[in-house]
Structure formats: structure tokens, C-alpha cells
């Protein structure tokens, strides 16, 4: 098991602080959880503890960005994207160089339950003009995405996990903004996965391989702007199409893929995610099993569909 993507973020931003003095980081009393504390320790003069004031933190980030800084505003995905109108006007409408870091995304956070889970955040942020929406799948991809984010022009939403995730990539991995990454070859089905579900989809492909099926796993780290090319190509080449995300099935990756295909290559899509419900308390493992996000559940669901097709 690798690190959580929030830890990879904290480590990377603390390193980047040395090379780029325009980076500033803000947190709303969760720096030890979002891991922005690693930056705070090294660069106290460029770290702002905003207290439990997410809306003010976002506005202050916009002001910092409009006067020349690259602002990383950190909190749990649900709390920070919940201050939507401030993000909409102060950040999106001005194209400010604010990176909204939403950690503790999805039911994968576990025991704390629904009020702490970011379950609709991708949907919210995806609908804002000028915003990019990214979700890395492992520590390496997170590191490379955060490095990229320093150079990006315009607002970004970056969605991270509380729980540890498997390492998918090695140190040579090259992150390409806006490009999907095909992880396995296959034609029976394709699964477009994002975040923590990439590792589960990858494991599911191995389970299915043993049963004689080939599953193509495509990691979508940039949900907006989405890689239309890889989606259309994979849809054309595979018999069945799945999406998988630890997020409401409404408005997230599943919706984004459906939008691309309905306009370009109409095809049936099976969206795996939270079926428009809130989460609940439980261990991350128990929750993933209950909602069908773990590798065995994914493999079994795909196999059932393959048998029916």
C-alpha cells in the first residue's frame, strides 16, 4: 500500500515552496489532516492559518492570487467546495490562480461519516467556468500533478484521499494535464476510473484476466477538461463501458464520460459510484464493499454484465 494522496500533496508542496517563493498555502484548522502542515512548518511566513472560515479563506486566496501569488487553499473536499458562491465569483469569475485542495474525498474517509465526506464536490466544481478539476490516483501522480499545478494558469480543484492508496506508477511517470492514462489493455470492457478507484479497477482487471476476460483500465486524472479522444477511442474498441468513482454518480466522472459519448459516439454506459445517496460511517474497506467499489465487487459486476451481453 502506498501513501494517501493528501500526504503526497503535503510533501510535494513543502518541496515546491523552496523553488517557488510565490507559493502560499492556507488552511482552515485542518492543516494536520490536509497535510498542509508540512508546508507550514517550513514556510511559516507563507502559510496562513485561517481558522474555521472556509469562505473567507477562499476570498483571501483570491486576493493573494490577484496580487501575484499562487494560492493553495486547503480543507476537506465537502467543506471547501461547500463555499460555492465565493469560489464562483471571487475565484472562477476572475480566473484567479487559486488551487482548491479538497482532501478527505469520498466514502473512503470511513468512520467520520457523511458530514465529513466530499461526495458532490466534483459535480459542483465541474460546472464552474474557468475551473479545471483533477483527481490523482496515487502518490506519484499526486506529486507530478502538484508540480504541474504551479505552472497552470487559472483556477484548479484538486481532489485527494484521506486513506492510503496503492502505488500505480513508478518514479518515471510523466503527468500530462488533460490526458487519460491507459493502464491495461483489453477489449471486453473498458472502465474509466478516477482517484482511489483506479487501484481497485486495476486489481479488478487482474481478477477478470484470470477468468479469461480482458478489461481496459483508463485512469482519468483530469476530469475537466476531459480527454475526449481516449474516451471515444476506448468506447469504440471495447464491448462494454464502465465508469468508476468514489463520488455521487450524478455530475462526476460518469456524467462527464456520458456527455462526451452521447455527443460523439452514443453508447450504453454503466456508472459505478454512489447511487445519489449520502454516505455513512464504517471502515473504508466495509464501505467500499457495501457500495461495490472494491476490486472484487467491480470484477463481479463487470463479469455479470459481460455474461449478459
Amino acid at each position, binding site marked *: 500500500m502506498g501513501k494517501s494522496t493528501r500526504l503526497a500533496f503535503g510533501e510535494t508542496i513543502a518541496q515546491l515552496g523552496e523553488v517557488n517563493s510565490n507559493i*502560499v498555502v492556507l488552511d482552515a484548522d485542518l492543516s494536520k489532516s490536509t497535510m498542509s502542515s508540512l508546508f507550514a512548518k517550513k514556510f511559516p*511566513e*507563507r502559510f*496562513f492559518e*485561517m*481558522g474555521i*472560515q472556509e*469562505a*473567507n*479563506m*477562499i*476570498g*483571501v*486566496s*483570491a*486576493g*493573494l*492570487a*490577484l*496580487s*501575484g*501569488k499562487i*494560492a493553495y487553499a486547503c480543507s476537506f473536499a465537502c467543506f471547501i467546495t461547500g463555499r460555492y*458562491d*465565493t469560489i*464562483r*465569483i*471571487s475565484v472562477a*469569475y*476572475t*480566473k484567479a490562480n487559486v488551487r482548491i485542495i479538497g482532501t478527505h474525498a469520498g466514502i473512503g474517509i470511513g468512520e467520520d461519516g457523511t458530514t465529513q465526506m466530499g461526495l458532490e464536490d466534483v459535480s459542483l466544481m465541474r460546472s464552474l467556468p474557468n475551473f479545471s478539476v483533477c483527481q490523482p490516483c496515487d502518490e506519484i501522480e499526486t506529486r507530478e500533478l502538484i508540480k504541474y499545478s504551479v505552472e497552470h494558469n487559472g483556477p484548479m480543484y484538486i481532489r485527494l484521499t484521506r486513506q492510503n492508496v496503492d502505488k500505480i506508477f513508478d518514479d518515471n511517470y510523466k503527468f500530462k494535464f488533460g490526458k487519460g492514462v491507459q493502464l491495461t489493455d483489453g477489449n471486453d470492457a473498458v472502465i474509466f476510473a478516477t482517484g482511489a478507484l483506479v487501484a481497485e479497477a486495476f486489481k479488478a482487471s487482474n481478477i477478470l484476466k484470470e477468468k479469461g476476460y480482458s478489461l481496459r483500465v483508463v485512469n482519468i486524472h483530469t476530469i475537466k477538461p476531459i480527454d475526449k479522444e481516449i474516451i471515444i477511442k476506448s468506447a469504440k474498441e471495447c464491448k462494454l463501458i464502465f465508469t468508476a468513482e468514489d463520488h455521487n454518480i450524478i455530475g462526476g466522472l460518469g456524467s462527464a464520460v456520458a456527455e462526451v459519448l452521447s455527443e460523439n459516439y452514443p453508447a450504453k454506459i454503466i456508472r459505478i459510484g454512489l447511487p445519489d445517496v449520502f454516505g455513512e460511517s464504517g471502515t473504508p474497506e466495509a464501505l467500499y464493499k457495501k457500495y461495490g467499489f472494491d476490486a472484487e465487487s467491480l470484477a463481479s459486476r463487470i463479469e455479470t454484465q459481460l455474461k449478459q451481453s
Partner: protein
Amino acid sequence: MYTHNQLQQIANELRIDIIKAISRAKSGHPGGSLSAIDILVYLFFNEIKRTKENALDPDRHRFVLSKGHGVPALYAILARIGLISYEELMNLRVLGSRTQGHPSYLDLPYVEASTGSLGQGLSVAIGMALTAKIDKKSYRVYCMTGDGETQEGQIWEAILSAPKFNLDNLCVILDYNKSQIDGFTKDVMDLEPLKAKLEAFKWNVLEIDGHNFAEIENAFNIAREANGKPTYIIAHTIKGKGVSFMEDNVEWHGKAPNEKETELALQELQKLLVKNG
């Protein structure tokens, strides 16, 4: 530096521009534009001294209009300085114009921030003041808020946070014209006792007549000397100031005058020019 008489003359001339622009647009907010114009004229001409040359200088003093609906007053000033044309001012709210109904930073960078969803501008101003502190720059940041928007929770988050960072380079001016869309502020959601609240939040608080240039000048002078503390100027103003039938009349918060009303308003404002000149 302009004399107070000169500033009064400019403000009254800009009152005419504001009424003309809103009247032509057939929509807009005259009440809060007319209440704010004296303070803004002083601020732009004598305090931050905005010119064509320094308008986008990275070290310029910043101004954020948090009460975005008062933007006709700001556009009138920008036109006077020559940052936008008079024609653009008169194209207020017209499709394709940079003079959007509320400030849009991407359309017109001279407005410094996109505002108009109330309660947000002060946070943005705090961010700019923090940048000045980090970069050890001497520019100051000014933010005008409205009384209605001071009911927003985010404003109080911002008021709580600025003193923590010792932002003595930040100055808030409240255009306290006492009314908002649904009625008088004291009835809709009273802010009082405001001065005591702000002092309890550790601000340097001043209270002035927002139409008196001597008091405005004095307040900005004190704000510049405030050591370690952000300054909050409670500026008592009159909504619709300068046009008798608009003054203190809630009805004129967000309504454009018709042709006849425009004529009456302009006649009154013309008389102010003659009287003052």
C-alpha cells in the same frame, strides 16, 4: 492634491454621469452609487492618486469595491481618469461592454476583483494586503463595503481575521447609507452597535460624515498612521445623495429613473455645480 471644493465639483459632475449612465441603461443602482461617490472621489484623486500611468503598476494601491452594485460610481471615476472612455461609461450594462452591471475583473482589470455577490470583497482585499506584507511592499489596500452586505457571515469572518494578521495596510470604508433592497437596514437586520462590535474585533474604528471632505481626508490620514491594526471607517452617508427625491428613499436602491425623473435629477445636480462653482 485637489482642494475640497475641486473634489466636490468633480463628485457632483460624476453624479450627473452616474444618473445619465443608469438612465440610459434603464437599470442599475443609483442610491448606493450617489451615496458612495464623494468618498470614492477623495480616495481615487487624493489618496491612492490613480492615473493612467499607475493603473496596473504592481505596486499600486488597491481598491476593491465589495458592494459591486455601486459600480456606476467607480466607472464614472475611471472614465474621468481616462481609463475607460465616456462612451463606455454610457454603455453601462450593454451587451458586449466592459462596463458590466457588476464589476468583472476579466472584462475590466481596473476594477481589481469580480464582486457583486455580496460579502466577498473584503476577503479578497485581505488577500491583497497579505501579499503586500509578504513582499514587504508599501502599497495599501482599500475596500468599500455596503451596510446591507455587512449582514453576510463572510464579512464577519473577514472582520475577525484581518486583525490577526496585523494588516495596518488595510482600510475598509463602510458606505453606511442605512438602507437596502427590502427596507431600512435597522429593520431588515440591524448592525448596531457597530462601532462597539468592530472595536471588540480589534479594529481601529473611525466614524465620519461620508459627504464631508475634511472628515474623509482626516480619516484616511489616521488610517495611514494606524500601527499594527486594520482601519474601519464607518462613513455615514445618504442614499441617493444629491437628488432630492432619491435621498433616503429605499425605492431608489436599484431602479433607474425614467425620462422625466432623469430630467428632474439632472436639473437638481446642475444647480449643485453652479452653486459650488
